[in-house]
């Protein structure tokens, strides 16, 4: 597998946009969403947080709380 060098700042910029829009939709529309829809969005949020923690780990800046809180891919299946 090829190694990829990433600019963590740029990647985190996109991930924070995804995080923020998911959070806003869940806040504003949360009550009117079906349980299934809420679950889909929560799953997307969890996966996004997991990627954020991964990027922080790769840049050497994830805290132990980040690592403990981040879900593993197995939990998302």
């Amino acid at each position: 597998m090829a190694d990829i060098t990433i600019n963590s700042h740029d990647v985190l910029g996109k991930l924070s946009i995804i995080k923020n829009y998911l959070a806003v939709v869940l806040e504003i529309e949360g009550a009117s969403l079906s349980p299934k829809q809420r679950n889909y969005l929560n799953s997307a949020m969890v996966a996004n947080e997991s990627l954020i923690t991964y990027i922080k780990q790769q840049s050497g800046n994830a805290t132990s709380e980040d690592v403990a809180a981040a879900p593993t891919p197995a939990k998302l299946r």
Partner: protein
Amino acid sequence: MNMGRILLVDDDKVNSSLIVNKLQMAGNSVVHAPEGETALAEFSEQFDFIILDIMIPRIDGVTLLSHLKKGINKNTPVFIYTNLISDEKKQECLTLGAADYILKVDVTPQQLTDRILAKLPTTSTAESRNQSENLPYGPI
């Protein structure tokens, strides 16, 4: 109702629209500067709170922070709001007087708004202006 006057300096227009919306819904007036020179021009006005990104065009956030600490907003609380992960940069900003160094990926717009509202001064510039405009007058 908070009625604070807040300056957001951030070139990310997508993210900024969410932050501006949240702060306005909380009752604040918000000025958004998408790059450093626009932000510098805004520093001649008094703000109750300033949110400052670091990696922005024209003039970077750290340079802006040092300008801020010399002008009329020198006592205005400043949050650095960035995705730049750097202990060195964080320390530099805190030494220059930033109240906090917050990674954008660590907070939602609501969480950022809550943190700002907790630090807004009890009498905002907007409230002071309203009070001075509504002073009672009458016979001496």
